[in-house]
């Protein structure tokens, strides 16, 4: 590898590690606000750092939140109350350990790395529910139950989409997966799985039209209702971290990861490919209202399940033809 220093340290600290996660939080919030504002005939954030187009606005907001009063409600277990969002944010970021952003830029190369990452993504919903339970509030309670149900809607399609790709490539090793796409991207080989993954990504990150657990007019902020200050950043930013992880996973699984380059250039190519997942996820906020939870469940167990099963079947056909 032609990297200046060891790849796994870059992976841990810069991309897709700590800096990437926090950087994504800032850029994604800015991008979302800006993009949605332009669709809605507005300018979007512009007050802070006008020459940059308001890019520093999220930084200002986050700083403001960090220095605002930390309120720990009395009716809760205060230790758990403070620890839950930290754990949640951390757990949402954990799957990046197993995902490679470029050859060598991975923390833990593992033959089943991507499969472990998928499973780690699915496990996090438990922490959201735990957080909501700790808050002990009627609105967080309803939000938590909705979170469980939404998880039930997207878990199987997401797993099936990943399974389809693993069958196609015959491996779950990030390197092997990318190598198998050297001729043709996975999204082209199995577009059904790609679409199923995109929809499951929207559900998993509770973007519109599946922004059901934190539906404002019904349950205020769902599982995040009681939080303020830094803890609110973690509770609310956790979804953006999940989007980051799933976009990274998707670009490796479906879009050929760092190909056709390697080394540092590969990192940038991965970043650009992540936009394929991130931009639609930002834009849907301007396009859709939200479904009801029963409609989301029906979609998850109806059309989306059929789509993902068809994706697995397509992969099987490809595999047998080869």
């Amino acid at each position: 590898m032609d990297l200046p220093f060891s790849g796994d340290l870059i992976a841990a600290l810069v991309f897709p590690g700590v800096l990437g996660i926090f950087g994504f939080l800032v850029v994604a919030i800015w991008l979302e606000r800006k993009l949605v504002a332009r669709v809605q005939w507005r300018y979007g954030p512009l007050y802070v750092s006008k020459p940059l187009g308001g890019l520093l606005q999220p930084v200002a907001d986050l700083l403001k939140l960090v220095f605002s009063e930390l309120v720990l409600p009395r009716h809760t277990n205060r230790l758990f109350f403070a620890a839950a969002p930290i754990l949640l944010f951390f757990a949402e970021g954990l799957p990046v350990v197993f995902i490679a952003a470029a050859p060598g830029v991975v923390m833990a190369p593992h033959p089943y790395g991507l499969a472990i990452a998928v499973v780690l993504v699915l496990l996090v919903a438990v922490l959201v529910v735990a957080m909501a339970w700790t808050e002990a509030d009627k609105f967080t309670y309803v939000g938590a139950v909705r979170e469980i149900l939404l998880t039930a809607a997207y878990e199987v399609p997401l797993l099936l989409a990943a399974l389809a790709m693993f069958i196609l490539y015959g491996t779950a090793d990030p390197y092997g997966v990318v190598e198998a796409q050297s001729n043709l991207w996975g999204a082209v080989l199995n577009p059904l799985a790609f679409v199923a993954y995109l929809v499951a990504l929207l559900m998993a990150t509770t973007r519109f039209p599946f922004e059901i657990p934190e539906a404002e007019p019904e349950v205020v902020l769902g599982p995040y209702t009681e939080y303020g200050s830094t803890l609110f950043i973690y509770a609310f930013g956790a979804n953006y971290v999940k989007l980051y992880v799933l976009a990274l996973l998707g670009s490796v699984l479906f879009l050929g990861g760092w190909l056709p380059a390697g080394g540092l250039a590969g990192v940038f190519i991965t970043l650009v490919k992540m936009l394929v997942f991130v931009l639609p996820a930002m834009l849907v906020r301007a396009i859709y209202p939200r479904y009801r939870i029963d409609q989301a469940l029906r979609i998850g167990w109806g059309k989306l399940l059929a789509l993902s099963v068809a994706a697995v079947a397509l992969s099987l056909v490809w595999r047998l033809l080869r």
Partner: protein
Amino acid sequence: MIIHLKLFATAVKQLLQQPLTVRWPEERRDYGDRVRGFIVNDRSKCISCQLCEAVCPAKAIKFHLEADGRRYPGIDWGRCILCGYCVDACPTGSLQHVNNTEIVWTDLDVYKKPSEMDPDDAAPLPGTKSLI
């Protein structure tokens, strides 16, 4: 599927459009010449007829004695609803709206003082951007 693509196309189409919002205070909306802004009194025309006090729906206008021995209307800006009835009732046209609705007081007592507005405070703020 096609309908969803159409939705995305409609949204992306908007990205090319000019925003409808106005970047206040760098640019202001042009509301024409009838804006019911703050109200100033031209003392040379005032005949102290007290019709403005009589029609005021918010009871914001009180007459007070000035040094020249005549009574003039003073407006309590905490009560005024800028309905313009006093301006419409004024038989000589001495009460007039100014093209300014953006005055901030730092002191509540100024707000309550039943005297006329300092014309410097109520300098007209011309709008430039008309959306229609």
